[in-house]
């Protein structure tokens, strides 16, 4: 598998001037170092790789390069792994150092495989870079043809509304059952002339009226009485509030005396 992915060059520790920004974390650095072993990653020596990494970190430290914590954590872990691998085999811890080493190797292989895949993917004939589609296609058009819907009811209702809206409005005021003031003045004036004695206002009202008209007649007759009294044609007497109102014909000289 050709290496299409260009890894950052590994500077030797004594000329190490790069920052660790060149790597995306310890695994990335480990992979770069592993690839410098120039062997298939499946054959990689984890011990040798550990050596390389620890030396590299050491070199960086001597140059007082500031290292992110995760690089140091990896260094510590690799130092532990190295000693575990070198120690005589005894009661194996779980997981065994061999398994830890294998895990690391598998992770490096996977990262390498994906890195390689990414490079091959990016190198494909990409639309807009290597192959081109039409820049201004006319486009397949979907013409939405409206199928209009309306019912006969909608139609006549609309027409009714227009007519209602635009018809000149005619306002008719209902004729209410009233006795007008003029009517009352005439009637009370005519009747009071015959009444020498005090006579109750109600006696001047026409009979046989419905209740609404009777109320109106009473009110109009009272106002008529006030008007006729003002003219001196009759006199009004009431003994107290809400007491019956009495009328009698006015006497011109008596009025003048009063």
């Amino acid at each position, binding site marked *: 598998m050709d290496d299409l992915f260009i890894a950052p060059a590994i500077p030797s520790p004594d000329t190490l001037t790069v920052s660790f920004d060149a790597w995306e974390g310890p695994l990335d650095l480990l992979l770069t170092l592993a690839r410098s072993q120039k062997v298939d990653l499946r054959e990689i020596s984890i011990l040798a790789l550990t050596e390389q990494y620890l030396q590299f970190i050491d070199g960086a430290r001597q140059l007082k390069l500031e290292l992110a914590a995760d690089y140091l954590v990896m260094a510590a872990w690799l130092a532990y792994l190295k000693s575990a691998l070198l120690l005589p085999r005894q009661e194996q811890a779980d997981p065994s150092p061999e398994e830890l080493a294998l895990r690391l190797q598998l992770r490096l292989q996977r990262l390498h495989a994906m890195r390689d895949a990414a490079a091959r993917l990016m190198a494909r004939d990409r639309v807009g870079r290597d192959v*081109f*589609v*039409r*820049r*201004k296609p*006319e486009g*397949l*058009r*979907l*013409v*939405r*043809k*409206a*199928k*209009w*819907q*309306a*019912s*006969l009811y*909608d*139609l*006549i*209702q*609309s*027409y*009714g*509304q*227009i*007519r*209602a*809206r*635009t*018809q000149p*409005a005619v306002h008719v005021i209902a004729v209410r059952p009233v006795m007008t003031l003029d009517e009352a003045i005439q009637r009370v004036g005519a009747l009071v002339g015959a009444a020498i004695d005090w006579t109750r206002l109600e006696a001047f009202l026409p009979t046989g009226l419905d209740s609404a008209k009777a109320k109106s007649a009473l009110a109009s007759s009272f106002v008529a009485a006030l008007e006729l009294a003002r003219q001196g044609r009759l006199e009004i007497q009431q003994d107290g509030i809400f007491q019956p109102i009495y009328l009698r014909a006015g006497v011109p000289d008596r009025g003048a005396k009063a």
Partner: protein
Amino acid sequence: MNGEPDDYLRAVEAALFVAEAPLTPAELRLHVGDAGDLAAVLRQLTDEYAGRGINLVERGGRWHFQTAADLAHILRREKDEARKLSRAAMETLAIIAYHEPVSRAEIEAIRGVQVAKGTLDVLMEAGWVRPAGRREVPGRPLIYATTVDFLSHFGLSSRRDLPGIDDLRAAGLLDPVDLALEGLGGQSVLENDDDVA
């Protein structure tokens, strides 16, 4: 298309394919260079594409691919979509139906509102209204009438089937909207009171 197309022809073909606008031979050369006989290649491509779904054509010295004219219909697909008429369109249609033939000014006079340009278009597109000549008055305005499709859509055998004004009144359809609303409130309550009294 016969034989192995050479690279110059392939380049011309591809350049014309991606172009945003028809290209003059000079513009084409900017892309494909001078490695071949451009005029001959354009002729060859025109021949090769003749009779296909895409044709190479020259218009005013500019070349472009276009779809064959007889295929235009497949590139536009129509789809029916049920839509409801707007209130303005409905009212306009009603006025035309009741008063036809009627001019736009007359419709506006009856509606009491201007008729937007699109409204009549929609009704004509629906196939319910047609221009029915001009009125012989100053300005000779276009007059409109309903169509046979209108009658069949609304289930009418003739315009005489439209309910008359008296029918509308009887159905309460002539009550002004706001009065009709009031009728549901105060007014009818009073009437009821009288009935009771």
